[in-house]
């Protein structure tokens, strides 16, 4: 979307609250959710704020579970509403059947995952361990979400607008994949303009059958294999078209000899690594995928031609690195540095890793 000039004063806000405020300003019709740390501030903020906004008509409902939330989202989205939910990892796992239905029925909506460390109940500390789940489908069947990965409180707010814009453009569920740190930390943010996201008509929605049209049906059931294949082909075509929405950001890649690839919070840390490295004379660059689906395969492939090696940094056991390796197809070595379970690598730790790899590479080349 075009970046508009923002006139508002910057505010100091928590990531979760900035996201919730952006949702109000994006004129959501409904939010359904169930509390879970580290994202409960989203529903808390909405419950507190929405009654004060007399100009808005927003449904905010605390559901009995994430299973119920996501199916409320399905119902409201099918009825034509701009609707969202938010949760954290275990809750998002519970939603997977519903998300698969929403993808199949081609309903636009926003699902926010403020990721915490797993597996299992895990920890409430930040993690990027849900990358696979978010980008490869997550639930059953062949489908994809549009996945946006913010790296700041500013983007926690902005991506609400971008996610709804894309979800409605493609009639596809979109996900904001954040993490516990982005949800909890406070930063300066200039909020997106109130009412700045227009609404298009949804003639397919179940709003009551009038005499001038056939009845509208929202379904994910296509029992004849021929029909089911047709729907799948249609979905695949849509995912192909969605590739044009790929977004990423680069730092000092022009003369880089070593490329870091990282998303979200890890990318913030890697920016520091680039600076630290360059102070020492190591030419490091960074590519940050902003959309995780679609993924910037092509750009990473182009950069691979110019660098000695790639280091992928994540807060997990190595998930996005598989996509980076796919992009590079063995052209240059792709290394991985990760911390897990809520731990975050420090810039120094990552730089040490780069230096160690650099040395090893030189020995190999000698």
């Amino acid at each position, binding site marked *: 979307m075009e970046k508009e000039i923002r006139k508002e004063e910057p505010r100091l806000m928590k990531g979760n609250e900035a996201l919730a405020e952006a949702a109000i300003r994006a004129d959501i019709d409904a939010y359904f959710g169930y509390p879970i740390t580290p994202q409960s501030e989203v529903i808390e903020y909405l419950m507190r704020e929405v009654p004060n906004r007399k100009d808005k008509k927003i449904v905010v409902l605390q559901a*009995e579970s994430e*299973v*119920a939330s996501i199916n409320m989202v399905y119902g409201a989205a099918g009825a034509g509403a701009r609707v969202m939910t938010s949760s954290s990892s275990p809750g998002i796992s519970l939603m997977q059947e519903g998300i698969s239905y929403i993808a199949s029925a081609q309903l636009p909506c926003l699902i926010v995952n403020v990721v915490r460390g797993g597996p299992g109940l895990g920890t409430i500390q930040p993690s990027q361990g849900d990358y696979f789940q978010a980008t490869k489908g997550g639930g059953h069947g062949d489908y994809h979400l549009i996945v946006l990965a913010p790296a700041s409180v500013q983007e926690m707010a902005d991506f609400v607008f971008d996610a709804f814009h894309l979800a409605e453009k493609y009639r596809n569920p979109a996900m904001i994949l954040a993490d516990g740190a982005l949800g909890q930390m406070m930063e300066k943010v200039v909020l997106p303009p109130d009412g700045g996201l227009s609404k298009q008509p949804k003639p397919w929605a*179940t709003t*009551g059958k009038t005499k001038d049209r056939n*009845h509208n049906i929202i379904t994910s059931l296509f029992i004849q294999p021929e029909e089911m294949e047709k729907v799948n082909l249609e979905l695949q075509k849509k995912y192909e078209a969605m590739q044009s929405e790929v977004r990423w950001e680069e730092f000092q890649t022009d003369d880089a000899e070593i490329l870091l690839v990282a998303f979200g919070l890890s990318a913030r840390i890697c920016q520091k690594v680039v600076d630290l490295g360059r102070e020492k004379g190591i030419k490091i660059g960074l590519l940050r995928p902003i959309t995780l689906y679609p993924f910037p395969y092509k750009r990473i492939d182009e950069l691979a031609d110019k660098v000695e090696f790639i280091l992928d940094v994540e807060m997990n056991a190595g998930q996005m690195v598989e996509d980076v390796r796919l992009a590079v197809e063995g052209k240059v070595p792709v290394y991985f540095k990760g911390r897990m379970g809520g731990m975050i690598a420090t810039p120094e730790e990552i730089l040490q890793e780069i230096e160690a790899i650099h040395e090893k590479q030189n020995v190999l080349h000698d």
Partner: protein
Amino acid sequence: MNEKLLLDDGTELEQVFCRPDTLTDVPYHYCPGCGHSVVHNVLMEVVDELDIQDKTIGVAPVGCSVFAYHYMNIDMQEAAHGRACAVATGIKRVLPDKLVFTYQGDGDLAAIGTAETIHTVNRGENILIVFINNGIYGMTGGQMAPTTLPGMVTSTSPYGRDIHMSGYPLKITELAAQLPGAYYVTRQSVHNPNAVRKLKKAVTKAFEYQMQNKGTCFIEVVSNCPSGWKMTPVETIKYLEEVMFPYYPLGDVKVPKE
């Protein structure tokens, strides 16, 4: 209605009954003698008579009636198994002026969807829940349902439902009636023309209550499943009268205090 029909021999007949516009011209896929089709007819006749086709939105979850949208000529949403009440909540909350109903089997409403059912009624969601209790999982080939009667043979209770292993049949309708959000709760059937007429009255009342924002209306229909029960349709009626109704007594369970 009241159109003249001209026969080949020139006789003029007055048409007194026809398929309402709320039913599509598609033959039911249900097994012969199955109660689902009768309940579909009743619902759509009421929607037609109350002239609320443009306001009514139905939700049909997984179960034999998942294809209800093929027959009901109204806007409809299919739902995941057990989630009809959540989907209906989502619709009703964003379209509070529309009339929303769910059409759920016993497996759907009283097993996998119990939490959604109870909480939806407890919130007093202003919707109609139609609950088809045929004591079995029809769609998946006749397995035991939460409502299967003790001793009843199904494919997963081949020696009869053993209450020591599987507990007692769940009277979820009585449970729902306990909740303050439930406005009108009734148990009906479609095993004879009189019962069908009563059901139609109940459905009409429920839609009228919804128009008045009274809260949740809950109509159980004790129905049959000739295929799952491995009986002829006539035998199922006998079984209903002799075995099902004594456990699931027909009549109102909660009526509005007016």
